[in-house]
């Protein structure tokens, strides 16, 4: 059986869920005839028709608002942001309308908001964003950041079946770069559960999305020096899997957090607070982080490379921490 790319896994998840449940519809810019800017929805219009694959004007607020309304009416809409950077245009609908709805008046909003995030492809300041932390700070939302094709498919299916607004951030660097064999049968990956991708004893590296792969490469390098890093893939940022995080730190006693999001206010800070609150006695060193710089994402390749975390930066930080 041919291996499935991360992008194809996302397409399969949508197609299979739309085939399973007519309440699932897709709405967004250029998602129909064109099949999406990255072709994530290619073939869905042919299969499911105009009523279920809805091309819209360039109106992110209206797209998200309409999807919320569809959810209230009993559908399970998937709304696409052409690039996740444009999610800022729909911020109010997400944070004030969707996120607070169930808490305020008991009206669930079954909504998946998905789109391509992340850098490394020279997209510049407006096509490279990692906006997860705006939303991790918003109670009522779920935030999912898959790192593998298997997870992309299984988590997207879970997101579609979830009764809450789920923001599903697809890392565009991974779209066509990673692939794997996927099960033929229907499967889901639960939202809110992290995964240990590589066991180790000397330190824990926590990461997600594209940086998981950077962290795994770094762990392989470190192993050559005799440093065994345990690599944890968060998979979901909200709700955070505190059990898996704390269990790993209690085992290795050292923690490095790696993320592509910028440094200040990134998830690393939250994880550091969580670990010091709950596992301070288990720590044998300071919590370290390798992140992007506190700047917009620059365009020129040497600038972006300098801005992003890399295998070398992770290896260096991990080595230092291991020897602390």
């Amino acid at each position, binding site marked *: 059986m041919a291996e499935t790319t991360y992008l194809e896994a996302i397409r399969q998840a949508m197609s299979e869920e739309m*085939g399973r449940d*007519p*309440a699932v*519809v897709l709405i967004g810019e250029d998602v*129909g*005839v064109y*099949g999406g800017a990255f072709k994530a929805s290619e*073939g869905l*219009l*042919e*299969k*499911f*028709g*105009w*009523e*279920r694959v*809805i*091309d*819209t*004007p360039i*109106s992110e*607020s*209206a*797209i*998200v*608002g*309409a*999807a*919320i*309304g*569809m*959810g*209230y*009416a*009993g*559908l*399970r*809409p998937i709304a696409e942001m052409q690039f996740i950077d444009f999610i800022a245009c729909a911020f*109010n*609908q997400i944070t*004030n*309308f969707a996120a*607070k*709805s*169930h*808490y*305020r*008046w*008991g*009206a*669930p909003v*079954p909504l998946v908001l998905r789109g391509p995030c992340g850098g490394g492809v020279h997209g510049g300041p407006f096509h490279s964003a990692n906006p997860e932390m705006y939303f991790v700070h918003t*109670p*009522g939302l*779920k935030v999912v950041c898959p790192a593998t094709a298997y997870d992309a498919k299984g988590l997207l299916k879970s997101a579609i079946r979830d*009764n*809450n607004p789920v923001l599903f951030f697809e890392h565009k660097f991974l779209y066509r770069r990673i692939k794997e064999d996927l099960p033929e049968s229907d499967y889901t990956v639960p939202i809110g559960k992290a995964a240990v991708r590589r066991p180790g004893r000397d330190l824990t590296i926590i990461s997600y999305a594209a940086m998981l792969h950077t962290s795994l490469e770094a762990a392989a390098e470190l192993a050559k020096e005799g440093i065994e890093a345990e690599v944890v893939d968060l998979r979901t940022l909200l709700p955070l899997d505190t059990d898996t995080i704390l269990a790993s730190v209690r085992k290795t006693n050292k923690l490095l957090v790696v993320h592509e999001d910028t440094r200040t206010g990134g998830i690393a800070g939250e994880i550091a607070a969580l670990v010091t609150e709950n596992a301070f006695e288990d720590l044998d060193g300071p919590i370290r982080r390798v992140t992007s710089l506190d700047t917009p994402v620059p365009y020129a390749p040497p600038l972006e490379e300098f801005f992003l975390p890399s295998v070398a930066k992770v290896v260096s930080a991990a080595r230092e921490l291991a020897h602390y």
Partner: protein
Amino acid sequence: MASVLTREQHLDLYYYMRLNRELEEQMVRLFRQNKIVGGVYSSLGQEAISVGTAYALGPGDWIAPMIRNIGSLLVRGFKPRDILTQHMARYTSPTLGKDGTSHFGDLKTRHVISPISMLGDLIPVMTGIAMAGRYLGQKIVAMTWIGDGGASTGVFHEALNLAAVQKAALVLIVENNHWAYSTPTERQTALRDLADRAKAYGIESAIVDGNDVVAVERATREAVAHAREGRGPVLIEAKTMRMRGHAQHDPAEYVPREMIEEWKRRDPLDRHEKFLTENKLWDAKKKKEIDDRIAREIQTDVEFAENSPFPPPELATEGVYCNGCHTIEADWKRAKEELLPPRSSVKAEWPGKVSAHSDAPPKAAAKIAAKTAAKTANTHSGNGARPASAGTANAKSKSPRKSKGARAPAKAGR
């Protein structure tokens, strides 16, 4: 002009408007007694709009009221106690004290969407409900309200434009009450009539005297029929006046006295009472009967609210997420099989009319659009979003109702 409503219905309009007013006056008293936790946003003088518009809907239709649309909640079957307990933050309120004012709703039976404070955001949500309703085969209409101030938001534009290209069954009531907090309408828009905004989206519009409940009800009824037939959204501008400040704390000293005096003479309740008397639809005894009933209902519900507890503090942590406490179920009115392959299959290409219509004379284009829309509404054979109809009706869509409904007050206080 003759109204199609029965005597009972005309009396209903009075009942709801009077209940709306008396309830709000009671809330002002409670506010002064420090029994209201937050603000009171008076709709004094605007009751005809909330009541007349909501009264024109069917039971399966959806509404999303704004802060000054308590009247529409009453028409929809909510009781004074719901509104009182909301304002007083009691555990017995529809939101259990988690939110206040008219920020509550009911998805399952009354089809009321809770507003949020950010203006304009209800319009795309109601557009989505209308789109879902069509998809589900329900033939419903979705209605919401916005003020002259809220009409300045970006999402107002985004949503009306989306509703227009989708031919969504949306009715938008623009309540022009001449004041957005302290800012007069001429500082919100250079248009004299906000109804003119409809032209920019290629949708129908009407202007109605917002202080005439019979006219409001009739204009809305026509708009609702238009939308329900699949002929696209309608914008109704209802001209009125906000008779109090933005909220109870605001003495509104920025409003010229003479403007208030002028609009007092057009009070919607006085006017409807006169209508009922002149048309011999009631007498003093009937009026007293209704007024007494309202006084009793409010008294009972004030007692209920005052005797209700505040929520337990720990409730603050509950209900952020739906963990299976609700089921998501669509009310299907059509066969699901139509929506699944192979019956749903289409060619992924824009229909040929896309390039043709842009060159066609506007009149011909409008005809094509009307045909396509009618076909869509009758057969569900496609989505209103189908590109053949999208954007074609804009150039020359004449509103036959506009002249009929155009009963704007001659002096709108400008």
